[in-house]
């Protein structure tokens, strides 16, 4: 038994050495063959890194909104159970509704009304066209995880008084004030002068688009009603639960309180919706998994093409080395020796290619890292190595089997 194992190890070792010699003897061809796998592994690892990055970016983007938040709204954001016309016919949620909810709800740690508008914002020659503006109260900041790089959020006084103050997202601030110094200056917002009181810290999540705090401005909701919009405009009530375990309780309470606020009888349906980030997350996860499937399919194809390339070249190699195989068989190589030789040749080429591809992928990953929060995962590295080995074995098998079956008499006669 022991002897068998050691002779098997011997055979594997010598087989690998023979394969390495053969690869070294055909450097040009081996290098070209490797290229297919280099590109394949490069594509697969880079894609998985990028996808991981997109996923993280989405998650970060969503959690920057605050993961324990509820949004009471006239509209259902996702998968509405009610038809859109019914949603449209709902009564607007008014500021009065908000104040009464705030008074009655005991569980939330913070609540704030909010609504949105778009205005072009200017500072001297710098213009941001139709900036996304969140109009809210001073409590809003407590419902989020936002931090400031400079200044502050507007105060309770400013909020209630509808003062002309504005807080800018980092990207907006950079566009209007490329050299900094935003806080204290007045910007033109849709024709009104507004004082910048704070600049938010960069969130860096590009995924959320307009909803990304980086690309927004924040103004007191009373200012909005005085200058830009009717007081009858429907608002969203932002509600923050104390922690994620409490979210469900806060939601139950919100339904009860809102029904009272809206004066609904027991047989009337809710004329409001409680929206959650889970809705956003599940939507995002759907999107991400579609991207993932698509991405892996496409990069998988490139690896597949690489594998076919290897198989093709191994077939050519077997044909070209028919005589060599004949010689080896004549002097005592067994079928499995030849089989092993060609499979390990293909595997070594693939493994080598996989490692090179991995190096490229690491470099690419570093470049991608400038835009996406990502790094190459250890499991991706292990997987890439295993995949390239498996590719070698699978694509090497058919040619190797063909080689092992060659009749030595015919093979020796082959010109």
């Amino acid at each position, binding site marked *: 038994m022991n002897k068998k194992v050691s*002779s098997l190890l*011997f*055979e594997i070792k*010598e087989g690998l050495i*023979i394969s390495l*010699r053969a690869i070294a*003897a*055909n450097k040009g061809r081996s290098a070209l063959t490797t290229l297919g796998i280099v590109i394949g592994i490069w594509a697969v690892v880079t894609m998985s890194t990028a996808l991981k990055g997109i996923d993280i970016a989405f998650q970060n983007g969503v959690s920057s909104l605050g993961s324990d938040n509820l949004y009471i709204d006239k509209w259902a954001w996702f998968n509405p159970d009610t038809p859109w016309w019914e949603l449209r016919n709902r009564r607007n949620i008014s500021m009065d509704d908000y104040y009464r909810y705030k008074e009655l709800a005991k569980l939330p740690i913070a609540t704030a009304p909010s609504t949105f508008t778009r205005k072009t914002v200017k500072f001297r020659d710098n213009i941001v066209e139709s900036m996304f503006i969140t109009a809210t109260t001073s409590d809003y900041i407590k419902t989020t995880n936002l931090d400031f790089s400079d200044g502050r959020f507007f105060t309770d006084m400013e909020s209630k008084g509808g003062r002309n103050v504005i807080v800018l997202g980092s990207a907006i601030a950079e566009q209007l004030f490329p050299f900094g110094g935003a806080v204290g200056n007045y910007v033109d917002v849709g024709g009104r002068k507004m004082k910048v009181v704070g600049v938010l810290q960069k969130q860096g999540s590009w995924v959320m688009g307009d909803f990304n705090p980086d690309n927004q401005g924040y103004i007191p909701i009373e200012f909005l009603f005085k200058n830009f919009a009717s007081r009858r405009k429907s608002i969203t009530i932002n509600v923050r639960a104390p922690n994620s375990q409490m979210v469900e309780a806060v939601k139950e309470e919100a339904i009860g309180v809102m029904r009272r606020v809206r004066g609904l009888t027991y047989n009337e349906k809710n004329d409001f919706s409680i929206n959650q980030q889970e809705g956003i997350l599940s939507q995002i996860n759907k999107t991400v998994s579609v991207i993932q499937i698509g991405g892996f399919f496409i990069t998988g194809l490139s690896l597949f093409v690489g594998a076919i390339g290897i198989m093709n070249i191994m077939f050519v190699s077997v044909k070209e080395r028919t*005589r*060599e195989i*004949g*010689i*080896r*068989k*004549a*002097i*005592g*190589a*067994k*079928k*499995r*020796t030849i089989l092993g030789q060609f499979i390990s040749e293909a595997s070594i080429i693939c493994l080598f290619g996989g490692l090179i591809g991995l190096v490229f992928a690491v470099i690419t990953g570093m470049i991608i890292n400038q835009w996406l929060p990502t790094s190459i995962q250890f499991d991706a590295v292990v997987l890439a190595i295993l995949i390239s080995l498996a590719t070698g074995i699978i694509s090497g098998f058919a040619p190797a089997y063909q080689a092992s079956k060659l009749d*030595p*008499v015919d093979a*020796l006669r082959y010109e």
Partner: protein
Amino acid sequence: MENIISIEHIARIYQVGLEEVHALADVSLKINRNDYVAIMGPSGSGKSTLMNIIGCLDTPSRGIYMFENENVSQMNDNQLAEIRNRKIGFVFQTFNLLPRSTALHNVELPLIYAGLPKSVRLERAYEALEKVGLADRVDHKPNELSGGQRQRVAIARALVTQPSIILADEPTGNLDSKTGNDIMALFEELHETGNTIILVTHEEEIAQHAQRIIRLRDGLIESNEIVKERTLVGNNE
């Protein structure tokens, strides 16, 4: 004298389309240790087929082939590979060396398949190359060697496993007559040191170096006679 090869009534039949081709019809022969036998015959006589069977590259369709009391005609591919590896040393007309490997590696190769450790392999490969006079060419690749030197490497490879027989197929066919003569002298020397040599050739002059000539025609043995006046290269010098 100890018998190595005993062939009894073997035939080799190929199926070509619907037709059966009898490459060997009915052949019986015996070869003893330290024999020097030449197998002769025109093309189509079955000479190559017989050589392939003797060399365990092929098996007979009928009849019994005993190699050192083992029935080769019943063996599978792996067992045949093992017999070829341990007991038969091939020398081919076209040398059949691995073109991209050094002389040393070419000679070492059968020992790898025999499963010997590297130190033993290298020692024996050097020894074999020394025996054929190529101790100073071990690191050369076949294309850096002359035809005669390549054939010497091939002979070293055949010798290195200390086989029971050396089977040479037209070993001088690709060499000029001077070099061919040197090779025949080497075979003579190997024979004198106890090796068993089977020489397949169609050249009468080459066959005359052997002790015995087996002539084939149409798949049958036409004659099997002792050579009365052997050409001995060593004596000519």
